[in-house]
C-alpha cells in the first residue's frame, strides 16, 4: 500500500521532472530539421529557472483568479498522473479514483482557469485566445467522448489501467481495425488539444493568430514559469495516455515484479517511446501549415468521423 503510494509520487515526480526535457528535445529536433543548430535540449529548464528568479508583476485590475490560475494549471496534470499508468502496468494507489473521462475533466479544470485568467486582465489578446480555445474545445470534446465510449466497449471499462491490460493481453484486440482508427482519432485530438500544428502554431509570435499562447501573455516571473511548465506537463500527460494506454502498452514495470528497480527501469523505456512520438510530431510540425481558423472544424470533424467509424466497426463486429 505504502509502496504503491510511493510509486504514485515517483510517477508525479517523473512527469514534473521530465516534461520540460521533452519540450526541449522537440524544440531542438525541429530546429535540426530546419537545418539550424537550435538551443540545448535543457534550455526549458534554464528558462524556468530564470523565470522563477524574476519578479512577478500583476495587473491591479485583475482578480484572484489571475493569481490562482498558474497554480491550478500546474497541479491539474500532476493529479492526472495519479490516475494513469506512467511507469507501472499494475494499478497504483489512486488508480480507481477516476477513469479517463475523470482525467479529462481534471485537465479541463486547468484549461478553464487559464481561460478565465486570460479574460481577467483586460489584455485584448487574452479573451481572443480563450474564446478560440473554447471553440476548439467544443469541437474536440464530443470526439473525446466517442473515443472513450469505444474504448469502454472494447475493454469493458475506461479505467486506464484496465484498458491498457486489455490491449496487452489480446493481440487480436490490439490489431483490430477499430484500434488503429481510435489511435489516429486520439492522435488528432492531441494535436488539437495541445495547440499543435495544423491547429495552432506553438512557436508563432504573431498575437492575432495565436490560440493557446495568447492566454499567458500577461504572466511574468513565477506565474509565467508555472504556466510554461504546466503546458509542458499537459503534453507529457496526453502523450503518456496515448502511448502507454493506446499505442504501445509495453515496456512498463510488469504486474509480477513490483520492485523499485523495475519501476526505475521503466523510466528510460517510457522516455524512449516519447522520443519516437516526438519524432512523429516534428515531422508533422515541419511539413504542415497552420489551418485557417474556420477549417479547424474540418480537422476535428475528421477526428470525429474516424472515432465514430471506430465505434461502428466495434459495435457491429459481434
Amino acid at each position, binding site marked *: 500500500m505504502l509502496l504503491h503510494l510511493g510509486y504514485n509520487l515517483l510517477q508525479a515526480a517523473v512527469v514534473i521532472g521530465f516534461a520540460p526535457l521533452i519540450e526541449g528535445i522537440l524544440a531542438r529536433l525541429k530546429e535540426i530539421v530546419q537545418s539550424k543548430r537550435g538551443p540545448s535540449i535543457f534550455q526549458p529548464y534554464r528558462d524556468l529557472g530564470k523565470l522563477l528568479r524574476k519578479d512577478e508583476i500583476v495587473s491591479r485590475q485583475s482578480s484572484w483568479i489571475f493569481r490562482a490560475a498558474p497554480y491550478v494549471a500546474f497541479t491539474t496534470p500532476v493529479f492526472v498522473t495519479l490516475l494513469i499508468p506512467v511507469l507501472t502496468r499494475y494499478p497504483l494507489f489512486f488508480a480507481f479514483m477516476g477513469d479517463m473521462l475523470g482525467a479529462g475533466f481534471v485537465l479541463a479544470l486547468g484549461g478553464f482557469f487559464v481561460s478565465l485568467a486570460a479574460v481577467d486582465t483586460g489584455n485584448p489578446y487574452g479573451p481572443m485566445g480563450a474564446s478560440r480555445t473554447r471553440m476548439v474545445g467544443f469541437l474536440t470534446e464530443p470526439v473525446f467522448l466517442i473515443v472513450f465510449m469505444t474504448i469502454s466497449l472494447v475493454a469493458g471499462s475506461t479505467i486506464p489501467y484496465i484498458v491498457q491490460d486489455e490491449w496487452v493481453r489480446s493481440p487480436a484486440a490490439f490489431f483490430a481495425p477499430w484500434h488503429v482508427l481510435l489511435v489516429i482519432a486520439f492522435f488528432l485530438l492531441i494535436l488539437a488539444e495541445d495547440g499543435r500544428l495544423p491547429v495552432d502554431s506553438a512557436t508563432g509570435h504573431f498575437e492575432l493568430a495565436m490560440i493557446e499562447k495568447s492566454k499567458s501573455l500577461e504572466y511574468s516571473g513565477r506565474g509565467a514559469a508555472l504556466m510554461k511548465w504546466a503546458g509542458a506537463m499537459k503534453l507529457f500527460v496526453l502523450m503518456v495516455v496515448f502511448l502507454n494506454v493506446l499505442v504501445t502498452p509495453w515496456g512498463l514495470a510488469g504486474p509480477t515484479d513490483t520492485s523499485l528497480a523495475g519501476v526505475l527501469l521503466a523510466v528510460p523505456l517510457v522516455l524512449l517511446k516519447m522520443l519516437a512520438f516526438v519524432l512523429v510530431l516534428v515531422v508533422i510540425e515541419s511539413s504542415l501549415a497552420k489551418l485557417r481558423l474556420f477549417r479547424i472544424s474540418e480537422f476535428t470533424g475528421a477526428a470525429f*468521423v474516424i472515432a465514430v*467509424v471506430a465505434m461502428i466497426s466495434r459495435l457491429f463486429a459481434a
Partner: protein
Amino acid sequence: MHALSTSSLLSIEALAGGVFLLTALGTVAARQLLTCFNLFVLQSFLLSASAALLGLALSSPHLLAVAAITLATKTVLIPWLLRKTVHGEVYRIREIDQVLNIPTSLLLALGLVGLAYFSVDFFGGVAVPAYSLVNLPIGVAVLLLGAFTLTVRREAVAQLLALLVAENGVFFAGITIVPNLPAIAELAAAVDIPVYTLVVGLLTRRIYSEMGTTMVGRLTALREE
C-alpha cells in the same frame, strides 16, 4: 520460417483493414488532388499487403498471386499511366471542386460506413470466418465511399480515383470470400483495370485539350430541360 502464426497474420491483416478504411475516408476529405492520388496508391498497397497476409495465413497461392498482381498494376502501373496521360497541371489543383462541402460529405460518409456494417447482416445465414467479418464490411464501406466521392467531386481525375477506390473496396471484400477465383479471371481483371485507367486517362486528356478544363462536373450541355 513459421515464426508467425496464422492468428497473428490474420491480426495484422485486420490492422491493414483499419488503415484501408481510413484511406478511403481520406479520399472523401482530401482537398488536394495529389493527396487523393497518394492515398489511392497507399490504399492499393494495403490491399496488396492484405491479400499477401491472407494468402500466407490460409496458404493460398491464389491470394499471393492477387497480391503480386495488385502490387504491380495498382501501385506501379496505374499511377504511372495516370501521370503519363493526364496533364501535369491537373495534379497541382489545390482545392478540388465539390458539390458538397467537406464536413457535410464526411458526415454522409459516416452514414455510409454504418450502412455497410449494417448490410453485412444480410449474410447472416452463412457461416462466415472471422477474417471475412473484418474484410467484408470494410470492403463494402469503401465501395460505398468511392461511389459517393465519385458523385460529389466535379474534377475528372478525382472522379476516376474515386472509381478506382470503389474497385479496391470490392477486391478487399472479394479476397476473403472468394480466395480461389480462377487464375484466368484474376488476370483478366488485372488487365482490365489498367486498360480502363488508360482509356479514361486519355479521355480526360482529350477533354482538357478540347475545353481547357477537367471540371467534368461543370459540363451540363446534355440534360433534360
